[in-house]
């Protein structure tokens, strides 16, 4: 891997987003630019309302920037595309479909049909260790299991970029830790470009190769911190001195922004 030139997967070019609200214009993002490399894991942290989710929606093509643009593989993003998959905080599983059929939805959208889709769905469910629950409905699963199904479904669409909007935000601490560990392991096995939003600094450092700290309204990139902790990483990584050091630094920066918001 060393010395290998990595291509730019995503280019965020001077993105600005303005919302027209009741109280006049609200600038959610202003002059956000960064390049994300192929197979890179990026985590974005920042106070609520800093425009993290807005940025993710723009990259996903679910929302348009007021000015500026996002490029994926050098092509300007216009609308959604299957090369960019999304995992939502609220799981967004189709409640009327079984777990297997939820995953099959993604497969069918890319043209895999019938028996083939059924079998392929099982391989994705094995990946998240839920093959036993293939025929259950989402309502029968816990939050953590639902999110694993959502991750399996996102993978089944074979995206080149995985956009995750606080995917573990609604889970309890234990489940959260477990899913973090699973996610690193999966990423270490099958590298993918990931853009992961969180407000948990520990989570960001554990997962990311670079952590992007965003400033309060209007959202800008305040600092990009490279995480030089070698892989494989696991929960014990959180005890290492380097982790603590990075955590102190990032937390300090984020905390300043929290204070900024409260003013």
């Amino acid at each position: 891997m060393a010395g290998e030139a990595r291509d730019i997967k995503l280019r965020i070019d001077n993105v600005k987003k303005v919302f027209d609200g009741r109280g006049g214009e609200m600038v959610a993002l202003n002059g956000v630019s960064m390049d994300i490399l192929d197979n890179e894991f990026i985590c974005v942290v920042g106070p609520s309302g800093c425009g993290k989710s807005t940025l993710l929606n723009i990259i996903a093509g679910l929302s348009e920037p007021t000015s500026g643009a996002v490029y994926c593989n050098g092509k300007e993003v216009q609308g959604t595309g299957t090369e960019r998959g999304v995992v939502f905080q609220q799981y967004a599983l189709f409640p009327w479909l079984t777990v297997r059929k939820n995953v099959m939805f993604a497969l069918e959208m890319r043209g895999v049909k019938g028996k083939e889709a059924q079998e392929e769905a099982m391989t994705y469910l094995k990946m998240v260790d839920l093959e036993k629950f293939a025929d259950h409905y989402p309502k029968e699963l816990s939050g953590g299991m639902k999110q694993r199904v959502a991750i399996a479904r996102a993978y089944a669409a074979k995206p080149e970029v995985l956009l995750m909007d606080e995917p573990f935000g609604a889970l309890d601490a234990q489940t959260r830790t477990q899913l973090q560990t699973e996610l690193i392991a999966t990423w270490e096995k099958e590298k993918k470009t990931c853009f992961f939003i969180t407000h948990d600094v520990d989570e960001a450092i554990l997962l990311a190769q670079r952590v992007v700290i965003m400033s309060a309204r209007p959202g800008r990139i305040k600092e990009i911190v490279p995480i030089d902790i070698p892989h494989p990483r696991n929960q014990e990584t959180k005890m290492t001195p380097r982790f603590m050091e990075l955590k102190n630094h990032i937390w300090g920066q984020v905390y300043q922004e929290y204070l900024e918001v409260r003013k």
Partner: protein
Amino acid sequence: MKKKQSSLVDRVPNWMWLLLSFLAAMLLWYILSIIPKTSRAFPNQFVVLSSIATMIQRGVLHTDIGSSLISAGAGYAFGFIIALPVAILMAWYRPVKYIIEPWIQFIRNIPPLAYVPLIVIAAGVGRRPQIIVITIATFLIMCVTIYQGVVNVDETLIKAARVLGANDKDIFARVIAPATLPFILTAVRLGASVALTTLIAAESTGASAGLGMRIRSLNSNFETAPMLLYIIIIGIIGITVEKIIKTLERRLTGWQEKREI
């Protein structure tokens, strides 16, 4: 949730409660039939049951039931066929909603009996005005309910489908339709009930047969036993239809997190 001890109320099975409820109703009915003041309005069970024979002899029982079922069924079907697209249009195009919704809210509060004469003047007597009245009444309730369903489709599910590569057609058929289904079935259930409750008004249009029409005509002769019989028949039809639709709901929308009313 910790229960102190399983109480008697919990230990009695549901069917037993239903039976008790039925027996209590029968008892109440019987009491009403012996109190002098109410006995004229509520003849006892045997008198009412024997009026079945009277009505069959007169040759009206099955034509009345048949006629009412045709009117209610046809009006209800038209109501649904119109309500479904109108509700979807209202949910998708706001101008349509802004124009039509106030009409619906306005007409909904007017008892159908009030506008029946206008419909008779416009559409004449016979089957047609009956169907029109029931169509209007069922359309109103079903349109409002289905509209709520289409509007309440979770935006995130549409986004999730879109990022997985779904086009507009996929989103309609594979997300919006199934997500709205529970509301459509609720609409179907409420519509059926409205179709029956509107029957009397619908059949006051100079109908020649029908459960509602017959009740009014029996009223002029004070024939309370067959009246009560007809009222009970309407009730039985109502509860049967509701049970059928509820079974359908359980079958088709058992995936729901919580059940609604």
